[in-house]
Structures are given as C-alpha cells and as structure tokens.
C-alpha cells in the first residue's frame, strides 16, 4: 500500500486527497472500462490475469473488459467516451487520431511485431520480393499495413504486382492452395496451420512444411498492441492517476503471465475463449516473446520503433495508392510519462518489469487447437 502512495506523489500532476489515499483504504473501486480490439484470447491474457488475480483491485480499480468485434474500432470507442482505455495497434490508432480521435499511446505493451507471411515450401517465397506475381493473403481491416510496407520496400506496387486477397477468419485459403502466402500472427493463425492435418501424411503440419517471413525481421515491423488513453482527459490528474494504476496493474498481469503460462491459459479459457487450451498456451508463449524481454521496462515506447512505425505509415502505399497516415502525428500522440510512473510503482512492489531472464517454453500443439 505504502509504495503506491509514494509513486502517485511522484507524478507531475498535482495530487488530490482522494487519489493519494492508500490502496488499502480503497472503499469504492473506481470503475474502468477497457476496450479490446478482438475476441477473448491469450493476446489479452495480461489484462484478464490482472483482473483475475486482483491486481486491478489492488489498485482500487474495478475493471470491465469489453471484447472487440470485427467492426469495433477501439480508438472510436475510446474517443466516444464509452471506454476509459483501449488496446489498439499503433498505426491503426494513429490513423484514427488523424481522423480526429484524440487518443494517446500511454504504454506500448508489445515491443515487437508478431506478423508473419506464411507459405508452403514449394512456393519458394522467402523474401517480400518473391511476392511478385503471387496471390498474397492479408487480414484486411487495417491489419495489413506491414504487407504494404514490405511491398513498398521491395519496390512492388500492391495494385499491380501482386493479387491481394483478404483471408477469411481461418487459414483454409492457404491450405487449399488458393493463397500463395498468407498473413499470420505468430501467436494465432500460424498455430492454426500447425494444428491442421496434412492430408498427405495424415499427421499435423510441421514448421518444416512452410517458409515464414517475419516482418519484424524484414525491418518493416510496426508497433502493435498498445494501451491508449483519452487525450482530452489526460489533463485531468484524477484520470492520469487512474491511468497510471491501470497500466501498472496491467503490466503486473503480463508479468504474471510470463511466469505462470498455464495458469494464465486457464484464466483465458475460463473467460470464454473459444480456441482451445493448447492453442491458448501456444498463444501466451508467443505473446510473451513479443513483450519480453523488455530492456527499458515493459510498456515503454521505444522511440526508434515508434519512428519506424510512423515512417512506414507515411510511406507504404496501399491498394488505392494511399498511405495509412498523410502527415506525421504530433508529439502528443504518445507519452512515456504514465508508463514510467507505473513502472516505478511496480518496482516498489517488487515486480520484475524487464524479464531479462525470460526464456520461452516449447508448446506442443494438438489437432484443432483443442
């Protein structure tokens, strides 16, 4: 309890009596709504864990987690005031900011991009340059910018040099051979491929069957899951205080998931994730790889990665010849102030927010992700 007091006092904003009250004296927790960008799955395990393990409650927060949908733009929900915080990919959220949504990145949870382009070995697609003349799958809905960035970088015109196909919710298009190279997240769709039966062998597909291009490795990785806050309310110290506690508890949740993968899996499954347990375990493991190790502390926005993301958003041409952003975002689009305060808070609680010793596990996938 005491540590939290000291941290809040360290924040730049003036402190009111109420927010300064020690957590132990929490009487009515502050209600907080968090908007996710997709369905319940281990991608959001840290938040669920924080909820489940009482980390939010420890901060005197009563967090409601709102699931996403295909058509839910978290930044819109946030800007409309229907949520207090939202999880969104950086480029998409910045586009929203350009469209007038006053939202601010306050914690960059995923330090790396988890996007892959997966193809069967016999297609011989090993670099983005090999995309030329091929049928390239993508998720659409703003989750395909890295592909455009890669194409642009390889000197290809998305409108002419490749046939772009929007993938369905599954990887069937790749397996059926309709799509030469499919977009896949390390933590989700790539696993789905490996959970499918290879009709030729009767056993599951193995990584050896595929070529995998990692956009992170290709240098066109863009920042993904981040916690966004309502820019208009950031001048309100009470909100800043809540934000700090929220980020802190969330990172604490992620740290929990780093150290307790199977407990975390169970939490997510219990929350109603539809993909099965083995899949969720894989997912947590892969997500952990995107977060940990975090050299400057989990949630810190790395300037280089930020600038790269912005630059790619300004350069990469999409199907219509447009770019994600038309002008560089202003400096207010992100801040490390809150996460810095949160990390200090966590440090006081003895939570490891760097994960320097983190080592991924090996997860065995089962057929159908069950």
């Amino acid at each position: 309890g005491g540590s939290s007091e000291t941290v809040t006092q360290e924040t730049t904003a003036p402190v009111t009596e109420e927010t300064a009250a020690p957590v132990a004296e929490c009487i009515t927790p502050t209600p907080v709504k968090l908007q996710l960008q997709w369905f319940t799955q281990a991608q959001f395990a840290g938040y669920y864990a924080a909820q489940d393990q009482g980390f939010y409650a420890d901060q005197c927060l009563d967090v409601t987690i709102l699931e996403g949908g295909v058509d839910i733009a978290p930044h819109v929900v946030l800007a409309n005031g229907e949520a207090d915080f939202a999880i969104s990919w950086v480029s998409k959220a910045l586009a929203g900011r350009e469209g007038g949504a006053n939202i601010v990145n306050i914690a960059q949870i995923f330090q790396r991009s988890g996007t892959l382009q997966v193809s069967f070995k016999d297609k011989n697609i090993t670099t983005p340059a090999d995309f030329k003349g091929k049928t390239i799958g993508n998720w659409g809905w703003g989750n395909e910018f890295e592909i455009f960035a890669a194409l642009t970088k390889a000197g290809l015109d998305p409108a002419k040099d490749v046939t772009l196909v929007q993938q369905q919710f599954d990887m069937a298009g790749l397996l059926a051979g309709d799509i030469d190279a499919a977009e896949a997240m390390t933590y989700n769709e790539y696993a789905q491929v490996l959970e499918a039966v290879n009709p030729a062998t009767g056993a599951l597909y193995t990584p050896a069957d595929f070529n995998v291009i990692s956009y992170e490795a290709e240098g066109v990785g863009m920042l993904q899951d981040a916690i966004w806050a309502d820019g208009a309310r950031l001048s309100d110290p009470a909100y800043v205080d809540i934000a700090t506690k929220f980020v802190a508890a969330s990172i604490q949740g992620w740290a929990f998931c780093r150290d307790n993968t199977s407990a975390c899996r169970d939490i997510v499954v219990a929350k109603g994730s539809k993909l099965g347990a083995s899949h969720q375990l894989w997912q947590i493991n892969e997500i952990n790889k995107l977060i940990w190790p975090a050299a400057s502390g989990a949630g810190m926005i790395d300037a280089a990665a930020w600038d790269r993301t912005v630059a790619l958003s300004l350069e990469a041409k999409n199907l219509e010849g447009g770019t994600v952003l038309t002008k560089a975002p202003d400096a207010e689009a992100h801040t490390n102030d809150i996460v810095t305060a949160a990390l200090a808070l966590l440090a006081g609680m003895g939570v490891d927010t760097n994960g320097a010793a983190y080592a991924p596990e090996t997860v065995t996938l089962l057929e159908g992700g069950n």
Partner: protein
Amino acid sequence: MTLVGRIAYRTSMFVLAIAAIIGAWELYKLIGPQGGGKFFGVSILPRANNNAMPHVWDMFSRFGRPEVRGSDRKIWVVVLSGAWFSLRLSFVGFLLGSTVGVGLAVLMTRFRIVQRGLLPYLVMSQTVPLIALAPLVVSWGGKLEIGSFVWPRWLSASILGMFLAFFPIAVGTLRGLASAPSAAMELMESYAASWKQTLFKLRFPAAVPFMVPAFKLAASGAVVGVVVAEISTGLKGGIGRLIIEYAREATGDPAKVFTAVFGAAALGLTMSGIVAVSDLLLMRNRPKETTT
C-alpha cells in the same frame, strides 16, 4: 386436415427435405472432385474434401462434443443458448422494423409527395452496409440515456435487425395498401370515410396478401441484421458471435463452424415459423382457391 395433422405433415416433409440434402451432400462428397472442378479456369464445382465439406456425421457428432477441450459444456447447449439469445434480439428488431416499415408505408400512401421524395432514399439506405452503420448505432446508443432508460448494448443489435427488416415491409405494405379494389374504395368514399378509417377498414385488410411475404422477408432480415450486429459490435452471447468465433477455427475443426451455421438456420426458421402461423391466422377467412 386437422391442425395437428398438418403440423405433423409439415414436420415430416421438413425431415424428408433435410434427408434429401444430406444425401445430396454425401453423394457429392463421394463423386465430386476433391480439389474442385474448373472449367475455363473458373471453379464451377465445389471441393469435396473434408475441410471444405465435412461429413454430415462429423458435423452432427460435433454437436455432442464439448465446445472446447476440457469444458463440460456440449456444443449443442452453447449453440442453443446462443440461438435463443439472438432470437430475442431478432424478435425485437422484427417488431421495431414492422412498426417503422408499416409506418413509412402508411405515410407514403397518405402523402404522395413523401413517397416520391422518400422511396428512393429508402432504397439507397438498404445499400448502406451495416458495417458502416454499426459503429454509429453502437456509439449513439451508448450516449443515449432518456430518463431512467439506459440504452442496453443489445438494443443496438436489434436496431440493426430493424434496419434490414423495415424495408421489405415498407415496400410490400406500400404495394398492398394500393391494391384495394377500386369498387371498395368507392364504397368507402361514399361513406365519406376518413382517410384513417379507409386505411384500417379497407386498405390494411386488402394489403394482407402483400404484407405476408414482406413479413417473411423481414423475419429473416431481422435475423441477419442481428447476427451481423453481434459480429461487428462484439456483442457476446448470440449465435452471430459463435459463428465468427467458430469460423476462426475452421482451419483445424471445420465441422465446428457448421454447428453454429445450423443454429443460425434454425433461428431463421423459427422466426419465419412465427410469421407463417400469423399468415394462417390472418388468411383463414379468405376465400380459398378451388382445388378441383
């Protein structure tokens, strides 16, 4: 035929039809090309492989297995409760859509200028993708608080159901209201019946044959709207949500998504069933066709 007899007959016909479909499906799996058939580079024949077309028994047995490993909730329970959830939303959407549709039709019948002015835009409204509207409806809903009434999240889904339901009703009712025989219109005129009286005593009864198919379309429209809304607004608990969640697993568990699809079909069937019964009730005293 007695009512019970008729229902029994209808049911057996339906079972027969299902059996025929199952037969055709499995037969195609036997003889159809695994990789699909192409003519002049265009795929014409669907693929008969197990990923694209799972065996019927796989789909049905999937109903009996748990939704996810380790869960003791069987899929049929999940699908059924999802369908029930969506049914209620659809029904609300259907009712709202009926009100709006009939209301618009009446307005357009009453004022020709409204019909001229509005009808093209009603048509256009139907081409506005729900996907463009869903975020608006959801966020407007979120802002609405009238007195003690707080806009529930599910109502947004019903509103989208209404959006698809009202149009066929408006068009069908409009046509129906204009279909009153001119002799009957003359009679009402001779009574100096007010417009409203003519509407209720003549136009509406005369419109019933046109309204019934409209309501049938609206019933399935409401279902589609609600399911789409569930998917796009992230509303949990309904069949639409299940469909998309299961669809993501189609790679490894192709039979699973079909269970939810069947759930949606059953949902639509129930809605149309409600309309069909009201059709029977409304038309029971009309002259029947001679069948000699």
